[in-house]
């Protein structure tokens, strides 16, 4: 409870700092929104021309896009501290965190909160809602609960990716930029049904980096497409929990990393 109120205090400070430059903040909000608007515009143009993609319509893909973008926007908003972690390690500022009476994972998590990601988040929500209004999803309590869990799971998945990128700094000081392939690249590839990719690619993003669990399996569930897509119902039902599990594993990786930490000695 204490850590929660402390967290709220931390993010209030971060938000106030970001609001100090109101004009810059507004522009950054718009910039975040514009990036995701063109991403979806690209998809819309392709559907306008080709009409359908492997039996998926534009708005079904809009659902895919909406879910993954919401998850990523929230993850970036709350967990950007892990993304900028390399500068903490580079400056030797992480040493300070080690002597404070709070967990390091918690401190890094709490030291950044980017309100400007609301720009991206609202664009993603708008796409999701428009898609939903074009689709004929019969919302039941079960489906709503499932969607809620799926969004949590997806957000956890992306936070987990950021944690891996940050934890790699314990060995390499500089963050491994390859992780961008899975975050930004993941959004890009996850905006289309994973069934269109080649087998090895599909399997990689299902079993090794479980991106398919973020939006593809949940969308199959919501759209009643499980059987036509040839997916297993059990896998689909457990998909939301994979992201949470993934985050737990990366937290362990983090812990292991901290024990290997050698200060840059500034």
């Amino acid at each position, binding site marked *: 409870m204490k850590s929660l109120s402390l967290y709220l205090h931390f993010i209030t400070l971060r938000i106030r700092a970001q609001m100090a*430059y109101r*004009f*810059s*903040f*507004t*522009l*950054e*909000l*718009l*910039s*975040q929104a*514009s*990036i995701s*608007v*063109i*991403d979806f*515009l*690209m998809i819309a*143009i*392709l559907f*306008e*021309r*080709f*009409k*359908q*993609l*492997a039996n998926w319509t534009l708005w079904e893909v809009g659902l895919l896009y909406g879910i993954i973008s919401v998850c990523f926007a929230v993850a970036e908003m709350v967990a950007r501290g892990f993304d900028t972690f390399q500068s903490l390690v580079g400056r030797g500022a992480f040493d300070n965190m080690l002597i404070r009476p709070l967990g390091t994972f918690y401190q890094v998590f709490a030291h950044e909160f980017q309100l400007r990601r609301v720009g991206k988040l609202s664009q993603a929500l708008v796409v999701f809602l428009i898609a939903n209004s074009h689709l004929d999803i019969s919302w039941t309590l079960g489906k709503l609960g499932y969607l809620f869990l799926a969004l949590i799971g997806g957000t956890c998945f992306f936070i987990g990716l950021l944690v891996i990128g940050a934890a790699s700094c314990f060995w390499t000081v*500089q963050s*491994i*930029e*390859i992780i*961008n*392939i899975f975050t930004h*690249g993941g959004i*890009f*590839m996850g905006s*289309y049904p994973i069934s*269109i*990719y*080649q087998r090895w*690619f599909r399997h990689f993003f299902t079993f090794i980096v479980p991106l398919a669990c973020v939006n593809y399996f949940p969308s199959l569930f919501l759209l009643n497409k499980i059987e036509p897509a040839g997916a297993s119902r059990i896998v689909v039902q457990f998909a939301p929990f994979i992201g949470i599990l993934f985050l737990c594993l990366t937290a362990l990786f983090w812990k292991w990393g901290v024990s290997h930490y050698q200060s840059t000695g500034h």
Partner: protein
Amino acid sequence: MKPRYLTCHVYLAFARKSFQKQMQYRVANLAGLTTNFFFLLVQIFVYTAFYAARPGPQPLNLNDIITYFVLCQSFLMLMPLWGTRSEIANAIKDGSVALQLTKPVDFQTYWFADELGKACYYLLMRALPTFLLSSLFFKVTIPQQPASLMAFAVSMTLAIFMSTSITITVYGTAFWTLDATGIVGIAHSIITFFSGMLVPLALWPGWLAQIGGWLPFEGLVNIPFSIYLGKITGFAILMAIGKQLIWSVFFCAIGRIILNLGFSRLVIQGG
């Protein structure tokens, strides 16, 4: 008035230094190459799936599309605001630009030289490897006529000039906003979209393609790559290159105005 007695070899030296600076980041470049390749792979998967449904005759066939996106990923880092942010752009933010203004050189040309040095680096270390590597894995078309290769070379050079002058103009706005991140992000989205980097203009719906044609940004990607693919031929090539030339000059001029206005209201942060 700044003295103009310095000749172009000074700027060449700046460009060379900027090139050498980029050479330091070998690992980052490797990571970038991998990312380029990943995005290319996804793009090719996606278009293959779209074309698989036999959507009827299209202005570009799948081979054209693959070649187009191979070129896109190869030249990506040469496009406006895609490359790493230069020290000069950062200098406006942290105030150290004051020091650079004391150099007896023309500031915009100096910045231009710095960006072009970087561009040469990306041509050699990013565009070339991405293109060669992709040709191994995918069916990339090579223009048969030497004339169209020549035309492409001219058009691409102009695209790089235009890209550089746009980059300088956009970062130059930092004199007003202090932190250019927001403006850069918005400009980045608009330019990236209208350049045709996400979807070639030939596949856009008519009305949108028309808007794209009025805007300058198709000169960055859509024009040079359409020339490469042989979709622009004959006299139209001259028209297209003329358009690129006019917009390049335009952005140089706008950039100069913005920078000059910026200097006149320059307040150094942090002292």
